[in-house]
């Protein structure tokens, strides 16, 4: 059950500052022991994640940053690894990052027991390298993943959404869990009603997102109905595996494409070259991308980090948009939707039928 709280702006405060104050309160009142938040790096040229227990250091924090730091969910993996001290952490992440956190928590990579997930409404982010332009006040278009995002507002299992959509003054804190509610109460937020304006704004953002995604999905399917397009777009891939490294839900220690099976010995490479005539080096670039799609699409939250990290500007988001929702729909699954949903490859239902047999 969503319960709303009010967080008014103090005099002269903007929304960023209001959230900073909220986080300071949380640390000072002992609602949590530490926070993981986005902050401006040196010279305001980029956004990084900051982990701190010191309320005084929160000045650098930019809660509504127009760019997304790297590795937020992965940081939580590290911070909550087994045997760590059970400090309570408030993690302020973008809605898509939070959904990735949920995916990782389902597969034992993150332990959410001592974590409070906070997520501000997100209007989209620009490429990290363009952050300084935004910071300088220039208008920079958001990343294409954000243009087709369906989840600008965090829902369950995020403990608390920090709402701005449909909220005139101040912030509306919408909690989705007992922990979120307790947190709101601990920092002294006042309970309030979820306003119609808020509800409407959230609905609208979802509708708009669905529409944008739907359009992109249709365009992607059209575009990639020809294998040539896909292969052509992949041809500048350097197989540096950045996409895999930054992907929050690609959690293997080492990708299987690095194993011996896919990295033949000198002898077998020569054999293979003989067999095929030619080999692209390093081998298995397309294999890597296709396998990654098959492995990751069920958990992919369409954050677009993969594409942002790609030095060759391969339009991965466009490629994934054509299959992401379709694949998750097969299993009535939605990445990050609920902690109750089991990851699709570990379960099945006897009644399901994808009509793939004999077809």
């Amino acid at each position, binding site marked *: 059950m969503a319960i709303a709280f009010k967080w008014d702006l103090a005099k002269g405060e903007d929304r960023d500052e209001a959230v900073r104050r909220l986080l300071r309160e949380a640390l000072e009142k002992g609602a949590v022991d530490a926070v993981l938040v986005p902050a401006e790096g040196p010279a305001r040229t980029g956004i990084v994640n900051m982990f701190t227990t010191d309320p005084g250091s929160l000045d650098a924090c930019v809660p509504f940053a127009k760019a997304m730091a790297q590795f937020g969910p992965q940081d939580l993996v590290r911070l909550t*690894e*087994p*045997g*760590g001290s059970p400090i309570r952490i408030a993690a302020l992440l973008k809605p898509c990052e939070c959904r990735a956190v949920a995916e990782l928590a389902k*597969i*034992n*990579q993150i332990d959410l027991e001592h974590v409070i997930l906070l997520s501000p409404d997100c209007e989209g982010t620009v490429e990290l390298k363009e952050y300084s332009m935004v910071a300088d006040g220039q208008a920079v278009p958001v990343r294409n993943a954000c243009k087709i995002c369906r989840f600008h507002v965090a829902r369950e299992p995020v403990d608390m959404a920090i709402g701005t959509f449909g909220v005139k003054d101040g912030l509306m804190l919408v909690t989705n869990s007992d922990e979120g509610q307790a947190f709101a109460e601990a920092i002294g937020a006042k309970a309030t009603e979820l306003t119609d304006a808020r509800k409407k704004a959230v609905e609208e953002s979802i509708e708009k997102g669905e529409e944008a995604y739907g359009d992109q999905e249709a365009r992607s399917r059209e575009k990639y109905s020809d294998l040539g397009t896909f292969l052509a777009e992949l041809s500048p891939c350097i197989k540096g595996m950045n996409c895999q490294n930054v992907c929050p839900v690609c*959690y*293997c*220690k*080492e990708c*299987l494409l690095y*194993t*011996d*099976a*896919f990295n033949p*010995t*000198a*002898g*077998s490479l*020569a*054999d*293979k070259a*003989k*067999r*095929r*005539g*030619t080999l692209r080096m390093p081998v298995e670039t397309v294999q890597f991308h296709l396998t990654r799609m098959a*492995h990751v699409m069920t958990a992919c939250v369409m954050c677009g980090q993969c594409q942002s990290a790609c030095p060759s500007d391969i339009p991965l988001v466009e490629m994934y948009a054509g299959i992401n929702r379709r694949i998750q729909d097969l299993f009535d699954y939605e990445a990050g939707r609920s902690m109750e949903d*089991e*990851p699709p*490859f*570990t*379960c099945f239902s006897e009644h399901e039928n994808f009509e793939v047999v004999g077809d």
Partner: protein
Amino acid sequence: MPGLRKVDRLKKLLLLLPCDEEMEKLLDTRSLAEEMDDPENWVFARSDPRLCGPDRSDYIADLVKETEAQAIIVGGPSDRTHGSVWRQEASFVGIPPDRVELVPLVQQCVYVTDEKDAARRRAKIMIESALARVDTGIDRAVERVKAMQAVLVIGGGVAGMQAAWDLADFGRQVYLVERTGELGGRAHQLSRTYPTQDCKPDGCCPQSCRDCQFTPRIDLVTSHPLIELLLESEVKSIKGGIGGYQIEVHSPEVSRLLEVGAIVVATGNVMFDAEEMGELSPWHPDVISFLELEKLIDWQRKEDHAWAPLRRPSDGKVPKNIHFLQCVGSRDEHHGTIDCSLVCCTYAVGQAKDLKDMLPDATVAIHYMDMRGPYRGFERHYLEAQESGVLFMRGRVVEIEPDNGNLILSYEDIDIGEPVTMEADLVVLSVGQLPTPGTAELAQMLGVPLDEDGYIGEDNTTYSLWDRRGVYVVGCAAGPRGIRYSVRDGREAALSIDAVLRRVQIELADNIAEVDDERCVGCGQCVESCEYDAKTLEERTDLQTGRKYRDAIVEPRRCWGCGNCHATCPSTAISLSGFSDDQLVRQVEIASGGHR
């Protein structure tokens, strides 16, 4: 073509069997062997009639000596049929089982097409694939474990009692867990069991049938010092595997943890409930199942302390018109099971004859599809019943309608090929037999598969449950059977268990999953996808850094080697010996044909 030497290869002996003359006409194995022989690349190909003769083993031993072969590839038979034979053959020359590959040229290659060239080409691809398999295989030592010596028996019917008794007699500690408050099971609910040893109910036998000298005696089982009886008890959880099972048993007021080396499943089975077959008026008091007939006879006996005539339930009248309906909810695609219950014909014939003896004026008829007596002696039993006046009518009764205190049966008589109706005043349904409720849960706990019809698979031909799991399914728990077979099962299981647990160490099968710590991230997806609970996540500490991490571990005694965990693990942290990524990827490359 002068090939580059593969660094990871073994010396391979390729044996193309010229044993199938018909096949030889389509694929000349001798010339194929000549073509594939490539000593430089450590492929030693031979096709020789000696491979099909009595001196095969000697010939192979010579070849292995000559070529120093480390692996054998056999072209001809299929793994499914001849795998074990050839692995044994290889073991004679010291080649381990995972270095033996069979290429099913007979089954899956030669006869598939009329084009000789195509068949030969295909044979070469399949052989190449097998050669690659051994070159990329993983060597693994066979795991051995020490065995606990006690045994758990679940179910105290005749089968379970026999197993418990024999095992205890061999000097083993036995825990006998029985769900109900008493031992004996089904057989002890029967007034008489057939075939009798020429004994008559009013004869000279000092024992009642239920304590027949051929079944284990309850008092002996109960008083054996090595048998611990746990009545009104349930097995709650089973961990571990052969040689080392940990069992949690709940008895009234106490819960125990038992450690045993093997488990006997003797949980019997249950009767089909005819309720769903409304057309037979199963609700009618005079339409009874054979178990109810037993109760009637039993009651009658207790009341009168003699063989007083049977009385029917509705009004206590002595029935004059008794009809047995065979195969109700058995051998039926729509109700109960398609299987035969194996004992109903025996039972009905015996019981009908006894009833006829008891009530000479009554009509006693058996409606049957076929008479099935699965043992020597049944025919005599059957003839005697016919001679004593029991009527045998072939055909399935499709309807029973109550009529004025009596019952009207409609059926098609197969012998005369016409629909017939007939009156009865007591109908006995020989109902089918189904798995005991809870069998699926038990199988899950044991980590053994169910058969398609819901019984625990009793003995699978290739993966022998008997020895691989230390789980022995006996008596009706493995499907319907008569008492003597149930008892014999118990005996056999006791013998097998004794033989297995007696070994100093138990060899586990080599086809099991293994987790690579370096690659595992502890996501637990494999744990979820293993149907046999062979996998768990374990928290570990890196001894060098003190860092804690989670890893999946395999309990090799529970792993069936299905490879499902392997396909689930995105990190390919799991390998299944014989089906490693290296092997499969190479096979795929070869099978795909390269970029043609």
